[in-house]
């Protein structure tokens, strides 16, 4: 049997670590972000030589300046189409993704970008929510642990809660589930716990 302490924290630690690592990984390597649609073969763009998938990725990172909260990939106005065209021209001229974004930022200001760069003052847009989420989750787990039964009591439990008891406990759980009371409005109130 595994060490009780280790086993008891395992899923918590796993979930938190999972969330933390992926969050950090994503922020550190933006090119793995959800927004891009990967490396599908380009099936012959109409003009010039550029990567259409790259162009579509850039389309999604530029906001349409004349429409509320739509990227140029989505917006149905003429300016958005013209900007898409411009993106492709610039790519065909050999601009990199970052240079294309800079081109538009220089002309339309930073709010043309769908998300700010992870540098300078803009780093707060990324770091602060991650920090708060980690802090909040941490605080939640500390509170949760503080709700735990004193360790002496737990010890008895641990001694009892061995393999032999487990199938029975599962049955209890299942059996109790059947006794789950009516949950709709109109049901009777739960009485005080018989044996707190």
């Amino acid at each position, binding site marked *: 049997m595994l060490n009780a302490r280790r086993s008891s924290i395992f899923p918590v630690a796993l979930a938190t670590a999972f969330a933390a690592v992926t969050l950090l990984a994503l922020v550190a390597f933006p090119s793995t972000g959800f927004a891009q649609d990967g490396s599908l073969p380009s099936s012959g763009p109409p003009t010039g030589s550029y990567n259409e998938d790259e162009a579509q990725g850039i389309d999604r990172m530029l906001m349409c300046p004349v429409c509320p909260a739509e990227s140029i990939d989505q917006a149905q106005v003429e300016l958005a189409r013209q900007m898409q065209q411009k993106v492709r021209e610039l790519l065909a001229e050999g601009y990199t993704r970052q240079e294309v974004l800079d081109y538009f930022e220089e002309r339309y200001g930073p709010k043309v970008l769908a998300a*700010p760069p992870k540098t300078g003052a803009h780093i707060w847009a990324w770091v602060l929510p991650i920090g708060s989420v980690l802090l909040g989750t941490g605080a939640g787990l500390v509170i949760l642990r503080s709700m735990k039964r004193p360790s002496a009591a737990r010890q008895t439990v641990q001694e009892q809660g061995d393999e032999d008891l487990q199938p029975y406990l599962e049955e209890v759980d299942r059996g109790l589930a059947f006794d789950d009371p009516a949950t709709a409005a109109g049901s009777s109130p739960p009485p005080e716990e018989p044996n707190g």
Partner: protein
Amino acid sequence: MADLGAMCVWIALALASYGAVGSVLGKMRGSSELVVSAQRASHLTVLALTVATLSLVTLFINRDFEVAYVAAHSDIAMEDYFTWVAFYAGNEGSLLYIAFVLSIMAAVAVWRAPAATQETLPYTNGVLMVVLTFFLAVIGFMANPFDKLPFIPLDGEGINPLLTHFGMFFHPPALMAGLIAASIPLAFVLGSLVGGKTSDQWLDAARVWGIISWALLACGLLLGSWWAYTILGWGGYWFWDPVENAALMPWLGLTAFIHSVMVQKRRGMFRMWNIVLINVAFGLALYGMFMNRGGSVPSVHSFGESTLGWIFLLFLAVGVIVPFAVFFWRYNKLKSDRDLDSMLSREAAFLINNLLLLAIAFVTLWGTVYPLLSQLFIGEEITLARPFYDQMNGPIFLALIFLMGVGPLLPWRQATWAAVRRSLLVPSIAAVAVIVVLMTVGIWKPYALAGFALAAMVTTGVLQDWARGAGSTAKARGENYAAAFVHLVWGNRPRYGGYIVHLAVVMVALGVVGTSFFNIQRDVALAPGESVTVRDYEVRYLGTTEEFKGNRTEYLSRFEVHKNGEFAYLMEPGRHFYPSFNMASTRAAIHSTPVEDLYLVTSENMADGSVGVRILVNPLIWWMWVAGPVMVAGTLIALWPQPARIPVRAPSLLTVPGPRPQTTGPGPA
């Protein structure tokens, strides 16, 4: 008719405010007559608002353009059945709709309130009537749909073309109803706390109404995505628009609440936490309404001409501060019955689930207010749009799905590591198998792999639990598996309804992963007769018909789709161009299968008959739309009333001396 409607709004306002004051005063002074009369007044608001609503419907059907609201949102050419949509197409009508829905739900909630809440019901009713009074006052004084124009226009301005879509019949009303329904669990909690009932009295009512509100929001969100997919013309369904976020955030809060409240029900824990959660969910719902009506954040969905921002901001402030004040007032009386037994238990899993849900809500809230923050601190407006949310919330959603797979398999109180290993063995094998299979067929994208593996894990976990349950029930009752399964589900509707909802969430996740990582998009210009090949689809453009209809030109383009060299089907995307706005609305043509959608939308009609067309292959998105009905079915099963029985809480571990006979059958006790 307009006068009748307006009069009914004022009557309802009087009734609601009397209901609010009377309930609370009557309860405080111990005057049961006053309480009863206030409650009757509250119920009568339903009647008054029904008449008001019917008046507005009649005005629309008669096209009474003297009424400003009717003139602004309909015209003679509008089909009568769009009255339903036109009714809430603008600020005034949608507020009336909200008030109407709230009055009905409040009446039902009070009428069907569980016995445990009876004593503090006047306070609950008071809270609901305060909310209703607010809406009716806004309608009466600031946004009256029955206001008349000084002249009678010959024709109305017509309904917004984007709204003339099937999805619009259900998406806005479901969302608005869901947002306002969040006030009912809050009212039960507040009522109990104010009345000094600080145990679990509010629990059942709050849970049921929390689920109703949650389900309405879920339907609204899915229908809204479907509407966006078919009509906005870019081939996506969700783009983290501020108003989409406004509906998502309270939904997340409610998701946390309806999970966490189970722990309170079964274990008597997390009482304070649940009160905080419902306060948060209600606050987020108010924030959503504020954003819809003059909030300081740009969006395509908001009621453009609204000037109600201030009053809704005030309402938001009051609606957040007052419940929290009540919570802190009663803080010292709110103690959990129990301690936590183990971090490896369903309780702990629920709490982590709560934290993750709130994390997504927080990141989303951050994204919607960041343009304001950056304006304040950096002096320039910075947008946080889809790339931000995808990168931040994507991983948290994956973690949530992981937890959705693990949580329900953990027993209450405490699990042993061996038991966990046993229940997770099959799901883990399934997850690994999916990863191996996908990698052998050449899919290496880490997110997609994680998404599919987790989907497999959750599904197998649920099915495994169903199989085990059906097996033991079949043995206990001597039935065949099918009958045993039905008995099992019917005997424990909340649990199995919840499982069905989980499966629906998996289906949504499949759609999200499929479209995010495997979609193909091509924008091309085609002359009649030309064709383009997208993967194994050959799309040939035949031609466009053009029809001039008053204020717009309707284009209908015909495409022939060949798959693997053989003719497969015809597709006809449409596009309506409004020259006076230089604006077009599109109707995508979608050929939908469980494997993938072929999606065609025209973006431009050139004078020479050629078209600009966007061709998309969207894998697995079909599952997302099917998830809607599944989710509704699961919710209905979970909510279906069960005959009242004496509830049994899972006993405390320390009181379990050893094995004793235990019924395993699902039948009535």
